[in-house]
């Protein structure tokens, strides 16, 4: 019956109610419109994955409610666009899940999935238009989307499939000589380097970092060998140093990060505004709708966390981060119970990727790392990100559990 899931979803709604009451008084249907998709997903779970984890969907619902409340205080227009995005994401998610289920073992098609990932990374280069100095968006009719968001999902599917098949050969205990072990690494390495180069080429720094981290974490989980990870981290640091010297926009970002007070009305304007928003929030925040989101450029995408922190304070922002951490924990737990290595790598990779992208954005807005234009899953504005995040979590649910019918291995 999955009654825990249902109960928790109802709890999320009742917790979100006061928020919506303050942010949009008298418009109760906002709350219902935001939460309906999760009851549809609940029904889907009820039919297809009865035994799957019941805590994951409520956490996703909670985060989504946070995100919509945040958009409501930034601009009602974004709220409605994102509502459209939510239903579109739901539709796409169902579509993909059906494909995954029909495939019986999706990881069987790993190279096809890898190719799709590459094509998605390549699209912006061919059809893209530049927004905020980076070429990330592709327009189709009146829709525009960010293919790299979905690309990373396929990239992860590819890596999980590939490492799931060859992980024994790559392990430290493997009897194979080093050069042959390395040869087995080549396809994955090639894919990753190529993806990285593409993303760097379109100036999508945040995403290249994310892709790199996905590669590293899957490699680490598959091989249980930290030498690979240390080596790759070394290569990354060299790469970072080179890009600092080669690319002006990388240098700018890093210089701003190192000296946020150097150009308060120019280059470092955005990061300082973010600091001020955090400071204004204090412990409990100014209250929803009483912050100054208008002061933050890219408020609804890169800067959602400081805006949330301004209105809900340290406690609210901590709750949001803790929810994402909890989501990650639940997925790690599922990875620990996965039936085969590919599934374990995929679910753990999903978990890490979702939290690590949050870490990159959040630390960017807090000045821990340079600012990167990534999204916080389920919270930031944007349909591509929402679709990818939802699909990642739902597919992890689909693949989890000891007795599921959707992976025949």
């Amino acid at each position, binding site marked *: 019956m999955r009654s825990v899931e249902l109960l928790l979803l109802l709890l999320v709604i009742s917790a979100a109610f006061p928020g919506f009451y303050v942010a949009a008084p008298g418009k109760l249907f906002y709350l219902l419109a935001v939460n309906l998709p999760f009851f549809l997903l609940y029904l889907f779970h009820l039919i297809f994955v009865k035994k799957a984890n019941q805590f994951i969907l409520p956490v996703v619902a909670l985060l989504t409610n946070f995100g919509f409340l945040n958009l409501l205080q930034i601009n009602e227009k974004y709220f409605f666009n994102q509502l459209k995005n939510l239903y579109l994401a739901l539709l796409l998610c169902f579509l993909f899940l059906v494909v995954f289920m029909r495939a019986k073992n999706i990881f069987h098609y790993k190279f096809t999935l890898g190719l799709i990932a590459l094509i998605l990374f390549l699209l912006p280069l061919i059809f893209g238009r530049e927004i905020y100095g980076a070429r990330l968006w592709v327009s189709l009719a009146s829709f525009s989307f960010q293919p790299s968001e979905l690309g990373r999902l396929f990239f992860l599917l590819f890596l999980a499939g590939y490492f799931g098949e060859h992980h024994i050969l790559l392990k430290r205990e493997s009897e194979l000589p080093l050069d042959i072990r390395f040869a087995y690494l080549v396809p994955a390495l090639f894919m990753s380097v190529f993806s990285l180069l593409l993303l760097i080429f379109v100036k999508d720094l945040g995403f290249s970092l994310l892709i790199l981290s996905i590669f590293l974490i899957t490699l680490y989980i598959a091989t*249980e060998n930290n030498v690979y990870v240390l080596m790759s981290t070394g290569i990354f640091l060299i790469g970072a140093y080179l890009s600092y010297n080669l690319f002006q926009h990388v240098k700018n970002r890093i210089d701003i990060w190192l000296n946020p007070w150097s150009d308060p009305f120019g280059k470092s304007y955005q990061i300082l505004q973010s600091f001020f928003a955090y400071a*204004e929030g204090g412990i409990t925040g100014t209250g929803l709708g009483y912050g100054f989101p208008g002061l933050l450029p890219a408020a609804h995408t890169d800067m959602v966390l400081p805006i949330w922190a301004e209105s809900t304070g*340290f406690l609210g922002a901590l709750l949001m981060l803790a929810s994402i*951490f909890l989501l990650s924990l639940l997925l*790690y737990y599922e990875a620990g119970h996965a039936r085969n290595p590919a599934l374990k790598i995929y679910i753990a990779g999903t*978990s890490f990727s979702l*939290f690590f992208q949050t870490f990159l954005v959040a630390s960017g807005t807090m000045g821990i790392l340079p600012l990167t234009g990534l999204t916080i899953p389920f919270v930031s504005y944007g349909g591509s990100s929402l679709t990818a995040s939802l699909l990642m979590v739902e597919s992890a649910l689909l693949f989890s559990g000891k007795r599921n019918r959707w992976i025949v291995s």
Partner: protein
Amino acid sequence: MDRILKITLAFTALLFLILAARLYELSIAGSDKLKQSSFNKRNIIASINAPRGKILTSDGTVIAESTGNPKKKRYYPFGQKMAHLTGYYSTRYGASGAELTFSRVLSVNYAELFWNTVPPEPGNIRLSIDKNLQLKAYSLLRHKGALAAVDVKTGKVICLVSYPSFDPNNIDRDFEKIRKNPDAPLLNRATAGIYPPGSTIKILTLAAYLEEGGNLNDTFKAPPVYRIGGFRITNYDKHDFGTITLDDAFKYSVNTVFAQLGLELGAGKMKSYMLKSGFGKKTGIELEEKSGHLPENLNDPINLAWSSVGQADLSVTPLQILMLVQAVANDGLLLHPTILADTPPDPIERIFTVETAKKMREAMRKVVTEGTGKKANSIVVKTAGKTGTAEVEGNKPHAWFVGFAPYENPEIAAVVVLENAGTGGEKAAPIFRQLIDYYFSR
């Protein structure tokens, strides 16, 4: 869950803790500083089109107000003359001065607006500034530096000028030009200008020596050059005073005697009196402020000796020196300075005994009647004070004068600093005298 997943999970948990720690730092631990930043537009944005409160002097004269309808503009009737008190207020460039410190009083409180149906009125701020004295002070200070005065019984600032100044009325138009001006007109030199105190520090050295049981008629050898290790401390113009009493040494500002005083007191005592007098930390005045630096490594005798005569790496703000003299004039009781008219006096602690303070006033009186500070001697009222000439490498020295009046029953204390102007007795003392003359002859 296997080992490798546990490691990955632990790494994720570490990332989460890093975020939580930094979040705590930004939202709670370090939030006051960020909220008060002059680049933080929240301090001004709340009232872009809402009326903003007035800033007044002690007699109720308006020195900052909102004009224009419906779009409000900030108007400063006295412009440059009160710029470092009012500060500026701009929707583009943030705020400074009282506009910044009291921003949340001056603007309409939007949190309150949420609960009340009647829009709340913005608050006004009345400063302790004496309008006419402030205008006089502005006209007297025509050289890069600072001039400020406090009421010695209450700690209230009655005038405060920093030169060069800027016109806050045109801040939106001229901000970049003003900010890039090498003379730094935005800097409030009275509270945030950092200078070596020169001989004005001898007030502290002498008071410490008296506190520790010394006497004004103790005698010292006062050679033109005093050697410690391989280093030398010299008198101004290498003057040889032979053997003199302490009050003569103070009167003529004899470096070689004060170096010996400092060495006799020792590093611990000197440092503790500096700390007690408020050096090395902010006074807490409601304006942009710097803390200055206490000398490092006072255990090195040469550093200790140089610090006792006000050179070496000791640096202070003019306000800190002014408050030291406020304590001397107020029987040793050091107060918190304030620019607000309506706050009660806020004592910090008695840093000298009543007797020491009395002896210090006598010594400072003699500086004006017989010593280096004769140009501060007034016919209107009995003044007392101390000159200072802070050597600057490769340039003319900074000229200091700090003092109080009337001698018998002190009311106000004032400080003058002129950057690279010459000696304190020649350049700074006359400005002090003119300000005091004006104050007592009105």
